[in-house]
């Protein structure tokens, strides 16, 4: 037994090496960059907090940060409002139909996100399909592309499947006898939903929120393509620092700030979940 265990633990070595090289090391480097001065080499460096100070003392950066969090929040809420009913509907279909629907939802993900976002440029552009439809409906020639609305649309479109799939999974795993028990105890379908289905699906909702909110905050190509440079988010700032300005240290510092904010937010969500469950184990 011991020998077998040893063999198994040896098998883990490549994974450990891989995760150190690909996850831990880059993270450590970013943290290192964020507290050192521009132009340092690995051999001689001086530690500084100037990048953090620069970020927090510049109102422009703070506005962009706020805007990023706000649009990610709106994206998450919209995904939740659309995603939950869709997931609920899917989980109540027959198994065959469920598979078909889940397949339909995952299918767009086979195509590169960038390509799909480019497609929206075509749809939203002047004389594009959307504008034509709107003018047919007599809603005038409103500017669609390069607005906050376009960015929000792009984000919801890209991240909605994550929300649906997460919630659908928890709903499908739920024991039908709990719903029968609820009906048996006198709860009509609406009461059963609020008292049994919804509370029990919270873990899936939290997972969905995490999977939508995190990439939405830091996404940079959706605002770049659909916001057309007029709508700048924190992801774009970081990208700029690295690629255009060349200030890797400042870019690293912003990345660290985002990472910390995310961690704090996720901890709050997790705490809320635990409280909601009254400290009971998830099933």
């Amino acid at each position, binding site marked *: 037994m011991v020998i077998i265990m040893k063999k198994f633990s040896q098998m883990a070595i490549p994974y450990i090496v891989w995760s150190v090289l690909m996850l831990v090391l880059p993270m450590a480097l970013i943290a290192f960059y964020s507290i050192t001065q521009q132009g340092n080499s690995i051999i001689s460096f001086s530690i500084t907090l100037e990048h953090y100070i620069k970020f927090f003392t510049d109102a422009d950066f703070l506005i962009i940060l706020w805007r990023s969090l706000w649009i990610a929040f709106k994206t998450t809420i919209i995904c939740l409002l659309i995603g939950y009913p869709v997931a609920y509907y899917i989980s109540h279909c027959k198994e065959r139909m469920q598979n078909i629907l889940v397949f339909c939802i995952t299918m767009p993900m086979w195509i590169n996100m960038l390509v799909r976002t480019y497609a929206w440029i075509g749809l939203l552009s002047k004389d594009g399909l959307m504008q034509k439809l709107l003018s047919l409906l007599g809603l005038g020639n409103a500017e669609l592309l390069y607005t906050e609305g376009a960015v929000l649309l792009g984000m919801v479109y890209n991240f909605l499947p994550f929300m649906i799939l997460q919630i659908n999974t928890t709903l499908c795993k739920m*024991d039908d*006898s*709990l719903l*029968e*028990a*609820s*009906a*048996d*105890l*006198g*709860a*009509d379908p609406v*009461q059963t939903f609020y*008292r*049994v289905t919804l*509370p*029990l699906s919270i873990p899936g909702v939290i997972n969905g929120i995490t999977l939508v909110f995190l990439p939405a905050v830091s996404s940079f190509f959706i605002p770049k393509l659909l916001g057309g440079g007029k709508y700048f988010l924190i992801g774009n700032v970081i990208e700029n620092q690295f690629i255009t300005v060349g200030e890797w240290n400042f870019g690293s510092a912003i990345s660290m700030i985002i990472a910390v904010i995310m961690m704090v937010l996720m901890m709050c969500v997790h705490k809320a979940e635990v409280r909601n*469950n*009254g*400290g*009971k*184990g998830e*099933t």
Partner: protein
Amino acid sequence: MKEKKLIEFRNIVKSFDGQIVLKGVNLDIYENEFVTLLGPSGCGKTTLLRILGGFIDADEGKIIFKGEEVNHIPPYRRELNTVFQKYALFPHLNVYENIAFGLKINKLSKDVIDQKVMKMLKLIGLEGFEGKNITLLSGGQQQRVAIARALVNEPKVLLLDEPLAALDLKLRKEMQYELKRIQQEVGITFIFVTHDQEEALTMSDKIVVMKNGEIQQVGTPQEIYNEPANRYVANFIGESNIIPGVMLKDYKVWFDDIAFECVDFGFKEKEPVDVVIRPEDIDIVSRENGKMTGEVLSVLFKGVHYEVMVETIPGTQVTVNMQVVKSHDVISADGKEKISATNFYVDLEDVKKLDDKEVVARSNAQAWNPETDDYISISKIEFDVKEEEGQYPVLFSTSGGTSIERTIFVVNQPFVSNEKANEAVMAFNFQTTVEEIKESLALDTDIKTWANAQAWKLSDESQSVDISAYYDFEPQSVTEGTYRITFSTTGRVFKIHTTDYIKEGQEVGLTFFPEDIHVMSKMVF
């Protein structure tokens, strides 16, 4: 207690995917009854309960509750509550919240809910557990919470779907008493589904025995046990000796070649029937005092009593010779092929049934490569057998040209018939080799095949009877020679429960009272 009808099932039919689960069930359930639906899995008992609960709809028929049809009333408006098989407690709520669920739905005031929940916790013996996490409770505790959650709503009827199935034996027994106590205390109708006959006998006022979607018998535990309606019920409830017999006239039944006094009447004259005698109703006495006599085959200690098997009619026997010969396989000139087969006997009547396949099987013919042990197919079988007694050659060859000649003995084999036991046995002499015996994985079965041993009912030749092979050689040290093999059927064996020890092999008499004989109609399948 003369009761009022509470629930009526009227001709309930239900099928799932074309498979009929309930075939027109009619059943009345009264107030304050503890009713058990008893049957093996798949008999439709849970389906019937779920139809009453409103979780599935019947295809046909009416469910009447307090005089009103409730077929189309959704489960949340029915005045009954269910204890589910796996409890179905809400994992996101604690003990108190689970029990209070139904009361909160009914918008009772906080202090009324408090009062009722506490009363329930007391009834189920879980005071002080109200804040406990459901998932941390033991199976028995979860069970009690599930019962409390249903009972707190003061339903007219409590439905219990195999609620004790998930508990261990000791806890199950405790909960049986507990459930009965709770039922008597709250005084409502319990409808309990189980496949456990002992559970049913212990708790019920009324048992409904079901099989294949039909009700077999409805009655009190005593009625079901003492007067089973048919062979199926007798077998399912308790242990029993079931013997085919004939009703000679009222109060007179004939079985095992003896006419007995009994208390049953109302059958047709000479009607074939099944007779049940419970193992505890038979007394073992001396040979001369017995209504029947027999030999004690086995005695098993069962704790409270001994289970004694007494053979009153010996099995039917036939003895044949087994000739064990040296293997004389034929090896091809190049040594690449080996072929073997044995002589065999065949009955005159079966000659016309002999084809290539049958000949290969009966002679145990096979060919193989001795180096690799791979089988080689026997491609040619030549034989010419006439429908007269005699010896006929048979030649087996492979496509490689290796061949072996053996003999088929056509004989007119008499069979042994036993009128008293209504059976006949037949077997043939046969030849085999030392290797075959040593290499056999299931020797008894092989011997039966080699000897073509068979037994059947005299009254119905298509009904075969089990036989066993008896021999007195050691398979692993067998040598060439001739051995006697006896094939025998089981005969009539009675199972008897007694507190007195009897020696195995002893000749004894069996006796019982006329009222211990229960005559049932033959089941129509």
